[in-house]
């Protein structure tokens, strides 16, 4: 089969001359530039009530503050992400966080007659004292201490795994932040 005939057969049309190249160019489907939702919008908290969410977000800024060069939990929108995660979590985890935040707010009022969200790091320190207990394999048994430990690790991971952290890391290290092999669904 002649080359021209072969191309015509593959394209299913009769083409000749310069028009052939125009048509081939049209067949190249462009790859569209798309944005991820979290790069172009704000999350709507669905698990925590507004006051609870504000306290939780403030806790994140204390547990995982920004440094001069790297984002903290607030910049990484870690609280927003964790609210989404908690919304899908089991009842036990939801209760742990909800009651933990409740106690944090209540103890803040009892301690300084001010809300937790308006406390400085130093003012909040007594409320976070359980985080200074030594490590054990089982972790804390007392629910409030357990909540604080869970929140500490969750804010840390949610911040390090954020787009904002990866962007800030890009200029500082040649290693791709959090890059790994992802297995697609296999059918």
């Amino acid at each position: 089969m002649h080359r021209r005939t072969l191309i015509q057969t593959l394209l299913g049309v009769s083409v000749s001359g310069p028009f052939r190249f125009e048509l081939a160019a049209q067949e190249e489907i462009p790859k569209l530039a798309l944005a991820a939702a979290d790069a172009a919008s704000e999350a709507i908290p669905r698990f925590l009530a507004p006051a609870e969410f504000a306290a939780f977000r403030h806790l994140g800024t204390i547990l995982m503050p920004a440094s001069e060069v790297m984002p903290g939990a607030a910049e990484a929108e870690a609280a927003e992400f964790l609210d989404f995660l908690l919304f899908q979590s089991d009842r036990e985890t939801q209760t742990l966080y909800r009651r933990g935040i409740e106690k944090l707010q209540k103890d803040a009022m009892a301690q300084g007659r001010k809300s937790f969200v308006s406390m400085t790091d130093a003012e909040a320190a007594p409320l976070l004292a359980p985080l200074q207990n030594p490590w054990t394999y089982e972790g804390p048994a007392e629910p409030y201490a357990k909540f604080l430990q869970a929140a500490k690790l969750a804010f840390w991971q949610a911040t390090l795994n954020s787009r904002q952290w990866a962007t800030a890391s890009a200029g500082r290290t040649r290693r791709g932040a959090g890059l790994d092999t992802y297995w697609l669904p296999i059918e």
Partner: protein
Amino acid sequence: MQSDHDVLIIGSGASGGMAAHTLTKLGIKCLMLDAGPAVDFDRHRVLKPVYELPYRGFGRPGRFPHVTQANEFNANVWADEKQNPYTYDPKDPYYWVRIRLIGGKTLMWGRASWRLSDYEFKNKDHDGFGDNWPIEYKDLAAYYDRVEPMFRVAGRKEGFRQLPDGIFLEDASGDSLSVQRFIQSAKRMAVPTTKARRATGQLASSVNLLLPDALTTGNLTIVPNAIVRELTFDKNTGLADGANFVDRRSSQERHVKARVVMVGASALESNRLLLNSGVHNPVLGHYIFDQIYVKNVIQCIVPEARGGKAPRNLMGGGGYIPRFRNLDTKQKNFIRGYSYDFGSGGTPHPSYFPLYGAALQKELAAVAGSGFSMTTMGEVLPRVENFVRINKEVADAWGIPALHIQHRYTENERNMAVDSMHVAEELCHGAGFEVLAKHSQMVPPGESIHELGGCRMGVSAKTSVVNKFNQSHDVKNVFVIDGSSFVSGGSQNPTLTILALAMRASEYLAEEMRKGTV
């Protein structure tokens, strides 16, 4: 359409893959059924940054309550727990970790490749507990010799009685200064050390090392997505004549005929299949065991590496400590023994530090790359009271009755774990490391993914399920070739032994078929 085959192989992992590799080269026509689909390594794997994953690497909550190895990157590899349920007594949780893909768990295994020794094969002779295998090390040595080159096992020959040498790609790599200090500390305590022995290569799976050669012979047909419901039997002879299976995607029921059936579906799945098939044997399902894991039994800091001040070659690398307890001496409160993996480098997890905020960040920066950790792997005693049975109240997504697993560790395992913590601390102190954390908490049974037993080898149908060639005592043309045939497991990762046993059983079968006795 051909539905009549010489040998039906159920499962495509280490044992099924080796059976296909061995039998097809000897001219035997095989049909392989596997419950899962095949991976297209170019199409099914992509590089992604963690922030592009829907759950920022946390994974969908509740998706894998028993698979601690699952993360959001590899979540699609593990068997779905809702589609494939199992049960246990809530007091005795069992973490059953499964992969339902062509290649099975050889797609994800840790590649550690250790031989068993007569401390395992003849363990009753050594300490009086349990039962010996009906084979000894010399029966399997020649098969290990052939499997290791196939899996390109790298390691170092040491002459340990408890960890026989093999045919290795010589690992001549040096040790970092911190590892050298640790090895010296071990020598002072008369604790042996060696390099890891691992299968090498980009992939070390039946998918690339066994099945392609088998297919090249033209004697192998692989059917994916075929979930075997039960074996079928000839009413006159009582012999197996094939299997019924369900197509995973359509749920269509199908049947296949075969002269011989080789079951290599993974230890507990093989137990489940035989139980669901009505195979009668008094110990079928009993004597299941695995290996204890004390993950990060100790976490240390190498002090000289603090603050990013590690001199060149201080950190990195690691090794292995083979069993050293109860070889020539006796421990007071446990029998058998344990081994360790150890590694230098990395940054300890933030959970170890009683800090938060800027203080935690400062400390993590200070200890970056200065970690040294060890993990214990110990022998679990096979006991008749650890067993699986069919739970008729629960079925999988295809209506196949599920397994109930009863497995509990005892004082022997607990005392072993505690001993391993103390020894680890002494070793690390001796190396001048700063101990950050230590513990002796074993992970739940099953989590090591080294499920073994239930169809154990032996000389009698009253006390075992298969003979020394993995052939069923009760149904002579059924062979059970995976880890379910183990009588004991030591503390060595079992895959190399599974491969060697499957090769040996397959060659025996081929010869028996040639003679016309099977």
